[in-house]
C-alpha cells in the first residue's frame, strides 16, 4: 500500500506545553483516513502541521518524499497547490461572493482567462450542489451551504490531497450525512486522498477506510475500520460505546473530602 503522508516522531508544543507526543503513522494514498479523538486531544493541531501552517518542535512529515516540516514558504506553496483544506467554520472570505471565493485559488495560481475560470467555478459549485448561488455572500448562506462552498473552493484546483477539520461539527444529522456523501463521492470518483479530523462516530463509520485514533497527543490505534470495531483496547471501547470517563471520586469520597476525614 502506497502512502500519501508519513509522519515520523512528531513532537509539538504550544509554549512549554507538549501537545503531540512523538506521533508516528502513515496515511494511505487514494483512501479516506479519519483521525479520530476526543476534544482537546490535539486533532486540529495535528492537521495544522500536516498542511504546513505550524512547524513541529521535532520530527518529520513526508509528502511525496519531501519533508514539509523543513520546507520554506515558497516550496510549501508548491505543495499547497496540490492540497485542499476545508476548515471547521468553512473560512470563506466574507468580503467576496461565493463565486469569487471559489475562483480565488484558480485566479492566483493559473493564467486562465476570466470566462474559463467562470466555467470552472460553476462546475465546482454544481458538484457540491450549490449551482445558482454564485452571487450570494457567505453571510447569506446556512452553515451546511458554507461548508459546501468551502469544499468547492478546496477542490477548485483538483488537489491530490484533501483535508477536512470536523466537517460535521455544528451541522444537523441530515446535512452532516449529505456532506459525508460528498466526501465519499470525491474519493470514489476523483480518487483523492482524503484526511478527515473528527470526533463524530456516525461519520467515521460512513466514510472511513482507515482510522488513526489519538488520545492526549498519542496514537493509540491505527488500522482499518474493521480492525477498529474489533479492537478490545479499553480507551477505544470507551470511545466507541460513548461511555464517559470514570469518575475519579464517588459521592461518598467527596463527602469524606469535604468532611475532612
Amino acid at each position: 500500500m502506497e502512502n500519501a503522508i508519513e509522519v515520523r516522531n512528531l513532537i509539538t508544543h504550544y509554549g512549554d506545553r507538549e501537545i503531540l507526543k512523538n506521533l508516528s503513522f502513515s496515511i494511505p494514498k487514494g483512501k479516506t483516513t479519519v483521525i479520530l479523538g476526543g476534544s482537546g486531544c490535539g486533532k486540529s493541531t495535528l492537521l495544522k502541521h500536516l498542511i504546513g501552517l505550524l512547524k513541529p518542535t521535532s520530527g518529520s512529515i513526508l509528502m511525496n518524499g519531501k519533508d514539509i516540516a523543513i520546507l520554506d514558504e515558497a516550496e510549501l506553496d508548491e505543495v499547497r497547490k496540490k492540497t485542499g483544506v476545508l476548515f471547521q467554520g468553512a473560512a470563506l472570505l466574507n468580503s467576496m461572493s461565493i463565486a469569487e471565493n471559489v475562483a480565488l485559488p484558480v485566479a492566483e495560481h493559473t493564467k486562465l482567462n476570466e470566462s474559463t475560470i467562470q466555467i470552472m467555478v460553476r462546475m465546482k459549485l454544481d458538484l457540491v450542489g450549490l449551482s445558482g448561488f454564485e452571487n450570494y455572500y457567505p453571510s447569506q448562506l446556512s452553515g451546511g451551504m458554507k461548508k459546501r462552498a468551502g469544499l468547492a473552493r478546496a477542490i477548485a484546483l483538483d488537489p491530490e490531497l484533501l483535508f477536512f477539520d470536523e466537517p460535521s461539527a455544528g451541522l444537523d444529522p441530515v446535512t452532516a450525512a449529505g456532506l459525508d456523501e460528498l466526501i465519499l463521492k470525491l474519493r470514489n470518483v476523483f480518487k483523492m486522498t482524503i484526511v478527515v479530523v473528527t470526533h463524530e462516530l456516525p461519520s467515521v463509520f460512513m466514510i472511513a477506510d482507515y482510522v488513526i485514533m489519538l488520545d492526549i497527543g498519542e496514537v493509540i490505534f491505527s488500522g482499518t475500520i474493521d480492525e477498529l470495531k474489533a479492537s478490545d483496547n479499553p480507551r477505544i471501547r470507551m470511545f466507541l460505546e460513548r461511555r464517559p470517563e470514570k469518575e475519579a471520586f464517588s459521592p461518598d469520597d467527596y463527602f469524606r473530602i469535604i468532611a475532612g476525614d
Partner: protein
Amino acid sequence: MTFLKDINDASKLINETFYWAFVSPFKGRGIRVRASISEMVKAGYNSVPIVAVISFFIGVILALQSAYQLKRVGALIYVANLVGVSITRELGPIITAIIVSGRSGSAYAAEIGSMKAAEEIDALKTMGINPVRFLVVPKLMALMIMLPVLTIIADVVGIFGGFLLSTTVLEIHPYSYFQQTVNALLVKDIITGLVKAWAFGVIITIVGAYQGFKVEGGAEEVGRRTTASVVASIFLVIVFDLFFTALFYYFT
C-alpha cells in the same frame, strides 16, 4: 521578553510588507491593483468630508488664536503667516493622520483580526496566497497615496478657513491676506508636510495590520486589538512627527 518578541514580530511584518510592495513587483509578482483602488476609495475618498470639515475648523481656530496675540503687537496681518505655515508644516498632516488612524487603521485591525479569528488567514495560506501581499499591500498603497492627497486637501481647506475668518471677523483685506500667505509659504514647508503624511500612512497601515495579525482568540480580542491599534498608531504618529520635525529643523 514579550516586548522583544513584539519588536521582532513587527519588524518581520514590516519586512514582508515592503518586500511584497516594492521588491516582488520587479520579480513579476505585481500588487493587486483593483484591491488597492478599492482601499483608496474606502480610506481616501470617503474621508474627504470629515478631513475637510475638521481642517476648516482648525484653520478658523488657528486664525482666532493667533489674532488674539498678534493684535496686541499690531501685527495682525501675520495671522496669514502663522495659519499658512503651521497648517502646511504641522497641523494638516497630523490632523489627517489622526482622522485616518481612527477611520482606517482601526478598520484594518478589525478586518484582519476577524479574518484571523475565523481561520480565513489560515485558509489564504493554505491556498498558497500570502496574506500580507493579499491584504496589507493594497492598504499600504492606498494610504501611501491617499494620506498625502488628504493632507493637501486639509492644507487648502484649513488655509481657506483662516482666510475666511481673517477677512470677515478680523477685517483683513482679502488680497493682502492672500499675498501674505503666498509670500509666507515655502515649497519646502509643503513638501516636508507631505513627506510626513506619507510616513504616517505607512505607520497607520503597519500598526493596524500588526494588531490584526496578533489576534489569537475570538471576537472580544478583535475589539481589544482594534482599540489598541488606534492608540498605538496615534502615539507612533506623534513620535515620528517629533523625529521628522527635529530632522527638518536641523537639516533644511
